[in-house]
C-alpha cells in the first residue's frame, strides 16, 4: 500500500496504558497506515476500539503518567514524530497536523472571542503581525462559510450555534494550512443537515489545500459518502483495510460485516423490506483483559478454537486491501 504521495506513514505504532494494578496493556496495537495527498482515510469501530487513542497517539497527546509509546514510527513526510522533543512536537501540532474534536463547545475557550482564538493559532506558529493574523482570520472565517465574519470575529463561542462553532474549530485547525487533518467524530454532535454541510466543507478544503484527512467515526453512512479508504479497528488492532468500494461491496472481516448488517438501510426502507437487524452479541472486551487470541472471537459467528489460540496477523488480500482473520477467504 505504499505510494509516492504518502504524507503520513505509520508503521507498527503501539501505545500502552497503565492499569490501576500498574500493569501495562496495549490500547493501540501495531498499527500500520498511510495517508496520501487529497485522501480521506476513515477509521471506524465501536466505542472503546481504540480509534481516538490512535489519533491521540499520532499527535502524542496522551498523558505520560498513564500512557507510553511501545514502538513504531509516525513518519510525516519522512520525519519521525515519535523521535521529536516535546518542543519540536508543539511546533508540529496545529501546524503540520491538526485535529478537530467531537464536541465543539469543549474545544473552544469560552472566555475568548472566536476571532482571537483563530488568530492565536496563527500567531503561535508563524512570525506575523497581529494585523496580518487578524486579516487571515477573516479570510479563514469566510473560507469555512461563516456569514458576516467581521461581526462574528468579536463574538464568543456561546453566541454561535453548534454548526457555526464546529466551523470555528475547523478554521483554527486549518489556520496554518496543515498537511494532515485528523477529524475525531467531527459531526457526531451536530444535526444531519448541519452534518452534511460540515463534511462537505472538510472535503472541499481537503481538495483545495491538498491535505490528507483521517476521519474517525462510528457512522458508516458518513464513511461511505466521504472516505476513499477505510480502516476498521477492534480492540486496538487494525482488523480490516480496504478502499471504500471494496469495503462496502465485499467486507471481509466478520466484525466489518456485522457492523454493516447492524445498521438500518435507507434503501431497504424505500423498498419496503423490513428484516431484523443483525446483532453483535456481547460488548467490546476491556482492553486490559484481552487473552491471546482474536479479540473478536467471542462475539464472532465464525469463532473457532483456532481463533482463540493466536492473534490473527493482518494479511493483504489485494495490493490495497487486507484483513486480520483466519477465516476471511482468499
Amino acid at each position, binding site marked *: 500500500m505504499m505510494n509516492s504521495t504518502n504524507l503520513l506513514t505509520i508503521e507498527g505504532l503501539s501505545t500502552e496504558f497503565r492499569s490501576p494494578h500498574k500493569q501495562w496493556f496495549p490500547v493501540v496495537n501495531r498499527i500500520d497506515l498511510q495517508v496520501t495527498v487529497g485522501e480521506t482515510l476513515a477509521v471506524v469501530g465501536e466505542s472503546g476500539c481504540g480509534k481516538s487513542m490512535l489519533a491521540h497517539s499520532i499527535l502524542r497527546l496522551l498523558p505520560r503518567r498513564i500512557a507510553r509509546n511501545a514502538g513504531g514510527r509516525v513518519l510525516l513526510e519522512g520525519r519521525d514524530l515519535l523521535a521529536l522533543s516535546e518542543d519540536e512536537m508543539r511546533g508540529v501540532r496545529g501546524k503540520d497536523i491538526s485535529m478537530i474534536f467531537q464536541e465543539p463547545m469543549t474545544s473552544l475557550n469560552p472566555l475568548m472571542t472566536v476571532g482571537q482564538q483563530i488568530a492565536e493559532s496563527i500567531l503561535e506558529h508563524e512570525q506575523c503581525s497581529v494585523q496580518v493574523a487578524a486579516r487571515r482570520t477573516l479570510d479563514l472565517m469566510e473560507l469555512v462559510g461563516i456569514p458576516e465574519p467581521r461581526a462574528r470575529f468579536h463574538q464568543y463561542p456561546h453566541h454561535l450555534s453548534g454548526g457555526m462553532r464546529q466551523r470555528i474549530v475547523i478554521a483554527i485547525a486549518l489556520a496554518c494550512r496543515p498537511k494532515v487533518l485528523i477529524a475525531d467524530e467531527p459531526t457526531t454532535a451536530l444535526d*444531519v*443537515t448541519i452534518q452534511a454541510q460540515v463534511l462537505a466543507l472538510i472535503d472541499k478544503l481537503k481538495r483545495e489545500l491538498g491535505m490528507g484527512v483521517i476521519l474517525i467515526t462510528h457512522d458508516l453512512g458518513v464513511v*461511505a459518502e*466521504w472516505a476513499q479508504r477505510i480502516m476498521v479497528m477492534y480492540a486496538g488492532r487494525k482488523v480490516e483495510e480496504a478502499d471504500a468500494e471494496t469495503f*462496502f461491496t465485499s467486507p471481509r472481516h466478520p466484525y466489518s460485516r456485522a457492523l454493516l448488517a447492524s445498521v438500518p438501510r*435507507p434503501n431497504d426502507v424505500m423498498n419496503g423490506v423490513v428484516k431484523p437487524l443483525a446483532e453483535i452479541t456481547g460488548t467490546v472486551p476491556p482492553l486490559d483483559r484481552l487473552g491471546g487470541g482474536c479479540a473478536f472471537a467471542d462475539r464472532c459467528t465464525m469463532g473457532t478454537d483456532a481463533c482463540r489460540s493466536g492473534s490473527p496477523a493482518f494479511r493483504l488480500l489485494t495490493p490495497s486491501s487486507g484483513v486480520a482473520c483466519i477465516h476471511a477467504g482468499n
Partner: protein
Amino acid sequence: MTLPMKPQPLLGVDRLVKYHATPAGTVRAVDKVSFEVMPGETLGLVGESGCGKSTLGRTIVRLHEPDDGSILFQSNDISHLSRKALRPVRRHLQMVFQDPFASLNPRRTIQQILTEPFSVHGVGSRREQINRVNELVSRVGLHSDHASRYPHELSGGQRQRIAIARAIALEPSLVVCDEPVSALDVSIQAQIINLLRRLQEESGAAYLFISHDLSVVGYLADRIAVMYLGEIVEIAPKRALWTEPLHPYTQALFSAIAEPLPPSVPRRKRSTLTGDLPSPMHPPSGCRFHTRCPFVMPKCREVAPALAKVQAGTTDARRVACHLYSDTPEAAARPSLLSGSPIPAT
C-alpha cells in the same frame, strides 16, 4: 349495508401548545401541533435538535403541563388531569428516555426498579410481582441474575433493556420512546431496535418513536411526522415520505442521510440547506422554514401554511404544511414538485 367503522385513534393531539419560559424569553417549543396515533402503530417523530420533538413527547405523557390544546388518550381528555387522576392513565401510557444512565435510580436494584410499577398500581401479590419481574427480565433478553444487580453494574444496552422492561411492565397501549437508541453503539442499537420490534409484535402496543436518526425511524415506523421549529410540517406513511418527500424541509432532511452503500451506487441528490435553525424564541413570520427554503415565495413570508391534504381527493394519510401544494397559481406553476426530485443540486 353497514359502513365500516372508522377505527378510533388511541391518541389524539389537537392544537397542542407548550411554551417554555426562559430568562431570555419564551421558547415556543410546541406550537399548535395536531396528529393522531392509531392502536398498535408506530408513529415516528423526526426533526433536528431544538425542533420541539422531545417537549412534545414529554407533554403527551404529561411530564409537562400543556399551555393550550388537548390530548385525547383512549378517548379521554388527559390534558389537564391532576397527578392523582393521571395515575390510572399512566398504566397505559409509558415512556422510555434517551439516557439509560439517568433514567434508573442508582440506589435500587433492578428487582426493586421493576417491582415498582406493580406496587404503585397494586397489581398482584408480592409473590406474583416477583414472578412478573423475572418474566420481564427474560422478555427483554436479560438473565435472571441481572435482577439482583444495581444499574451501575450493567452496560448501557442492558440498562436500556431495563428501562424498556419498566415501561412495558403493565402492558401499556402507548409507549413514547424518546431517542431510546441514540446513546448506544451501533451493534447495541441493533439489539434494542430488534427488541422494541419484537415486544410490539407480542403486545400490540403503539409507539411514538422520537428520533433525529432518520434511518432508525424509517426502519421502525409505519408513519412519520416531521417537525420544524415547534410545528409538524409533514406527516405521511413511511414509504411515501421516503420515496417522495414533499415539504422542502423534509426533502433536505432526507437528502442529508448518509447511506452505507458502495460509492458507485447512485445517491439521492443532496440539497444542502443554508443557514442555521432560527431561534425558537423568535420564529420567522409566515412559514417558519421560509428563511432556509430554496423555493420561498412572497406569500411564505406572510402567511403560515396549514397542515393540509396535498390534493383534493387524496387520502387523509398524507398532509403537508407548504404553500407549494396549496391550490394557488404559484403552486400550479411548479408541477415538477409532485414528480421526481425537485431539489436543486448544489
